[in-house]
C-alpha cells in the first residue's frame, strides 16, 4: 500500500485534488491510500517521519505564508524517503522542472490552473507510478550508486564498461555505455565490491568481464564493446582467457 500525501495551501484545490485522487484510486483499484492532505509542510514531514515508507507526494511549489517552499519540502522528504514519487503542482508553467528533477528526482509536474488538465495530469502520474512499480518488480537489474558531489548517480552495473584510476589521487573514472564521470573512491574498494563480475586486469583498470570484446595477447591490450581500449598485466593473461571462455577463445587466437 502506497501512502499518498498532498501539500497544497489552497483549500479548494486541495479538496478537488483529494476528491479526484480518491475516485481514481477506487476506479482503477490502485494499491494506494490517501494518508494526509495539508497546507502545512511540517505536518507532512511529521507524518512521513512517523511512518517512513515509500510514498507518493503531490506538492504545491508556492506555499504562501509557510516556513518552506515546495523545493525545500521535497528536500526534507527525500531525506526520509529516498525512493518516493514526488509530483509538483504549480499555477505557472514557468516551473524550473529540470532543477527539480535534477536535485529531487521529481517524477513530473502538474499545472493546476485548469481542472481538466489537472485531472489528466494526476491520472497520468498514477499510471506512470504503477508502471514503474511493476517494472521494478520484474527487474533484477543491479545498480551502482555513487555520490558525485551533491547528487547521487545510479548506473546499471551491466552498463559499466570499466573503471580507471584518474590522474589524481582518490579519483576514479567511470566508463559506462551512457555515462562518463569521475568520483572519489579507490579501485581496491570497487574490486572488493564487484568481485564476481569485474576483473582487476591492470594496476589502473578494473573491467567488466561481460564488456570485453577482444583480447590482443601480444600487445597486452583489450578492446571493449564500446570501442575503448584497456591494458592488462602479463600475469592476467591466463585468468582472462579462462574467464572469457571458449566462445571468445577462437576469436582471440585468430588475432
Amino acid at each position, binding site marked *: 500500500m502506497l501512502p499518498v500525501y498532498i501539500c497544497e495551501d489552497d483549500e479548494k484545490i486541495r479538496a478537488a485534488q483529494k476528491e479526484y485522487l480518491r475516485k481514481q484510486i477506487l476506479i482503477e483499484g490502485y494499491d494506494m491510500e490517501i494518508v494526509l492532505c495539508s497546507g502545512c509542510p511540517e505536518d507532512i514531514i511529521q507524518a512521513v517521519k512517523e511512518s517512513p515508507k515509500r510514498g507518493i507526494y503531490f506538492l504545491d511549489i508556492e506555499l504562501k505564508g509557510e516556513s518552506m517552499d515546495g*523545493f525545500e519540502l521535497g528536500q526534507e522528504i527525500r531525506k526520509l524517503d529516498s525512493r518516493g514519487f514526488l509530483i509538483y503542482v504549480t499555477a*505557472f*508553467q*514557468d516551473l*524550473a*522542472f*529540470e*532543477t527539480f528533477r*535534477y*536535485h529531487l528526482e521529481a517524477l513530473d509536474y502538474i499545472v493546476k*490552473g*485548469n481542472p*481538466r488538465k489537472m485531472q489528466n495530469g494526476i491520472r497520468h502520474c498514477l499510471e506512470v507510478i504503477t508502471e514503474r512499480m511493476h517494472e521494478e518488480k520484474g527487474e533484477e537489474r543491479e545498480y551502482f550508486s555513487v555520490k*558525485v*558531489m*551533491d*547528487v547521487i548517480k545510479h548506473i546499471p552495473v551491466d552498463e559499466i564498461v570499466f573503471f580507471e584510476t584518474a*590522474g589524481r589521487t582518490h579519483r576514479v573514472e567511470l*566508463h559506462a*555505455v*551512457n*555515462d*562518463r*564521470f*569521475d*568520483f572519489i573512491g579507490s579501485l581496491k574498494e570497487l574490486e572488493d565490491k564487484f568481485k564476481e563480475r569485474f576483473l582487476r586486469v591492470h594496476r589502473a583498470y578494473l573491467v567488466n568481464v561481460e564488456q570485453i570484446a577482444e583480447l590482443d595477447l601480444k600487445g597486452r591490450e583489450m578492446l571493449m564493446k*564500446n*570501442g*575503448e581500449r584497456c591494458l592488462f598485466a602479463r600475469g592476467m593473461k591466463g585468468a582472462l582467457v579462462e574467464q572469457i571462455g571458449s566462445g571468445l577463445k577462437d576469436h582471440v587466437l585468430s588475432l
Partner: protein
Amino acid sequence: MTFFEVMCGNLLSEGMTTIFFVGTSILLLGEIPYKNRKHYYTILGSLVLYIVVRALIGTIFYKTGMFMWPHNGGEKIFDYITIAGCMACLWVMYKKPFGTCLGTAVFLKIMYEAGWSLADLFAPNKFYHLEILTDRREYLFQEWVMTPVGLLLVFFLLYKTKAGNMFEQWEEQKLRPSVLVFLSFYPILVQIVQEFVDMYERDTGYNPATTIIFLLVIYIIFIYAGREGIQKKRIEDQNVSLKQQGAYIENLEGLQKEVRRFRHDFKNMMSGMYLQAEEGNLEAIQEYIQEMTEDFDLQVGSQIRLMNQLANIRVTEVKGLFLEKMKTMQEEEIRWELEVLKPFEKTRLRSTDLCRCLGILLDNAMEEVQGRKDGKIHIMISSQNGYTTFLVKNTLFSPVDFHKLGMAGYSTKGSGRGIGLNNYKKILEKYERTLPLTTIQDGYFIQELKIQEV
C-alpha cells in the same frame, strides 16, 4: 635694516607671491566669477589687505626674531597665517565651500614652495650677508629673477598637464574630513620630514625621508592602478548591462507584437463568450476562459519567463555570455530553455575560465540541434548547499563515440573539429574539486559541470 626697509621689501615679495597665488588659482578653479564692480573691488581690497597683513606680520616676526625659534616654530605660524589668509581670499573670490578653499590653499602653498625650491637649486649658498655688495646682488638676483622664473615654470607645468581638469574632478569628489585634517597638517609634516633629513644627514646612503617619499609614490601608483582595474571592470559591466538592455528592448518589442495579436483574438473570444453567456451555457464559458488563460500563458508567458531566469544570473560575465548566445539562438531559431531557480551569485572558478567552458558546452549543443526542427536545448544553473551545477542538455541526433569524446580532433561533426571538449577538459584540470560529467539519457546528450565551492 630698519623696520621700514624690511616692510618695503616684504611688500614687494608678498605682491609677487600673491600674483602667483591668484594666477594659479585661476588656473585650477577657473575664472573668478565677479558679478559686478562691487565684488571686484572687494576682491581687490582683500588681496591688498592680504599682502599688507602678511608683509607686516613677516616684518614683525623678523624683527622680533620669531623666525629663529626652534623647530622653525615662527615660520610654521607664519605658514598657517598664509594658508588662512589664502583661504579667506579664495572664499572671497570663489565662494567655494570651506573644504575646497582649504585644499586649494594648501595646494597653492605646496606649488609655491615647489617653485621656490626650484629656484633654490641654483643658489647653493643659502645665507647671504646683505651688507656685502656681491652677496646682496646675488640675493636680489635670486629673489627677483630666479624665484619668478621658478614660479613661472611651475605655473607652466600646471598649465601643460591640465591640472585644472584634474582639480575639478578632485573637487567634485568631496574631500573627506580626514583628508582635510591631513592637508591642514602640511606645514608641520614638512617640518618633520625636513628634520628627518637633517637628523640623518651624516648617514650616507640612508634617509627615512627618501623611504617616506618612495612609499608615497608607490602608494599613489597602486591607487592609480587599482582605479584603472576598477574602471575596466565597470566598463565591462556597463557593456553587459547595455547588451542586456538591448535584449530587454528586443524582447519587449516581441512581447508587444504578441500582445497585439492576442488582443485581436481576445476580442473575438469575448464576443463568442458573450453569446454563450446570453444562452446561459456555463460550461462553454468555462472552456472559453480556460482557453484564453492558456493562450495567454503560451504566447506572452515564455518571453517573460526567460527574462526572469536571466535575472537570476548575477555573475556579469556569465550573464553576458548567455545574452550573446541567446541572440544567436534566436537568430537560428533554436528552441531553448533556461532554468536558474536560485540566484547564481558567484563561483570559485575564474570567470574567464568558466565562460570559456560554458561557451564550449553551449556551442556544442547549438551545433547539434542547428537546423533541426525537433531539436531543443535545456540549460540549468543550480547553486545551492555549496555546490554549483551547470547542466547543458540537447537533443541527440548523431551517435556519439563516447570514448573518443574529448580527444583532440574528434567530433561528431566531421574532422578538423572537436578541439572544444578537449580544451574544456584542460581548463577544468587546472582546478581541484571540479567535475565534468557526460551522460546520454532518453535521447538527450547531457553535459554537466559541477563545482564544489567550499
